[in-house]
């Protein structure tokens, strides 16, 4: 971006223009035209019912005003129970998911796993990561019945997909010389992982574990919509009954808990560094 192109102009002086971000003119125009064409095509095929949206706006105002003031009290029992259930689900699924993702993550690191294991683990992680939690939850509710167990399994698998992939990438980025030095002492495979690899990836992984706890809590609010238990179930009921003030209370509580988790994880991360 900082490069400049100078060219003599007709008046004999020198003019300057900022060099374009993409140097290759064909690529630049190609990308520009491609983007324009895409936006045109997208806009052209969108079936947006603007009239309906316009009509909805006053209703929207009504809808939003129904959220205020948030009503914590009238459904407090259900809300409290749902929140607790979400917290249990988030905690257990984060712990179980991280425990399970360690072997998968080790297997998915190209520099320590043999190729067949690597491919298998990578494929596994891809599948877990591809499906949004809600899709997984639909299936697990079918298999395990309604309730928090289905949510627990869903969030655990999603955690494996998330954490395993990041663990594998972190191992692939580690300093190979430190690991090699431990191997040269005659350490066994597990000792090698424990002394040569683990210290290098640990601090980041602690931070990511806490981040995943935060994600799992937020996601527990949606697996409930399809029957996976937790605060999502309470929220869905509130919407179904048009009790928007209770729904607002639930949303505020979710925001508050996410804030609290974020604050704590910041403190812990500072200590681990």
């Amino acid at each position, binding site marked *: 971006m900082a490069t400049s192109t100078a060219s003599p102009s007709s008046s004999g002086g020198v003019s300057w223009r900022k060099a374009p971000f993409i140097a290759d003119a064909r690529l630049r125009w190609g990308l520009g035209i491609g983007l324009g064409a895409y936006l045109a095509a997208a806009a052209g095929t969108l079936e947006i019912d603007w009239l309906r949206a316009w009509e909805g706006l006053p209703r929207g105002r009504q809808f939003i005003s129904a959220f205020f003031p948030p009503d914590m009290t009238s459904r407090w029992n259900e809300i409290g129970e749902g929140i607790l259930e979400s917290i249990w689900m988030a905690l257990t699924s984060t712990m179980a998911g991280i425990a399970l993702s360690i072997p998968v993550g080790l297997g998915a690191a190209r520099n320590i796993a043999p190729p067949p294991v690597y491919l298998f683990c990578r494929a596994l992680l891809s599948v877990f990561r591809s499906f949004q939690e809600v899709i997984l939850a639909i299936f697990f509710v079918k298999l395990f019945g309604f309730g928090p167990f289905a949510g627990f399994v869903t969030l655990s698998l999603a955690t494996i997909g998330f954490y395993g992939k990041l663990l594998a990438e972190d191992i692939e980025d580690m300093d190979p*010389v*430190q690991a090699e*030095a431990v191997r040269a*002492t005659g350490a066994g495979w597990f000792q090698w992982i424990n*002394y040569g690899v683990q210290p290098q990836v640990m601090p980041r992984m602690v931070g990511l574990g806490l981040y995943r706890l935060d994600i799992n809590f937020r996601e527990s609010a949606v697996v409930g919509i399809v029957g996976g238990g937790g605060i999502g179930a309470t929220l869905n009921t509130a919407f179904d009954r048009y009790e928007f003030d209770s729904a607002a209370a639930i949303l505020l509580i979710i925001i508050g808990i996410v804030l609290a988790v974020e604050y704590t994880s910041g403190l812990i991360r500072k200590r681990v560094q």
Partner: protein
Amino acid sequence: MLKMSGLTKRYRTGDLALREIDLEVPDGQVMALIGPSGAGKSTLIRCINRLVEPTSGTVFLNDIELNALHRKGLRRARRNIGMIFQEYALVERLTVMENVLSGRLGYVGFWRSLFRKFPRPDIAEAFRLLERVDLDPMVDKRADELSGGQRQRVGICRALIQNPLLLLVDEPTASLDPKTSRQIMRLICELCKERGLSAIINIHDVQLARIFAERVVGLRMGEIVYDGLPDRLTPKVLTEIYGEEDWETTIGGEKTGGGDAGENEGDDEDAGPHPEKERLAGMI
């Protein structure tokens, strides 16, 4: 006694790093391996403890054929071979003590090592070694808090606590200042002497090799082109190893015992070549 014969390494890229190397290192000998970058020095020492798998040829340490070993045997053999690395290669987030004790991993079971419950004698030995290199106040510091010379001394302790028969030393002074370089080289040589260890030291600093080693082997394009005493390193020999250059200054400085005109300027004030030579004379 370390004995290599016909050792060849061809990387998957097709580069031939070592061609039919035959080399013997008797017990207790400190040997310097010199040569230009890419000559195969690192590959050679890594082929000995099989951090790099040789393509063909044999390596014997005493009567064990290292390149025929399988997992368990290889582990056992590796613990008899200490290694000191370029840029120290300490595990940076472990403490000094943990780094030193990691040299015992080949002897200790997994669970003990996981909970850092090393046997008492190991810990006593670690303290002794750290005292020997003047690092015992640093026991609980994390490795990344140390200076370069201190880190390399921890690396030396890690190699020695293995109680090895042989030391492989890969460019120990590559990232150290001239004074520390000498101190580290001197320490390594003294320790080898004390323990009757043989050592192969990869080093690109010809001057240091001449001062400290008993024998110098020159490597070029994966082949041995010189093998002999350090003071036989004439300009002609160096030209053969490294290529054309005015080698007189490198060697001349040493001969006169004065100005140290080579790459190692700047450490004359406290450790000139003279006391160096006397110490060396005492050691050999």
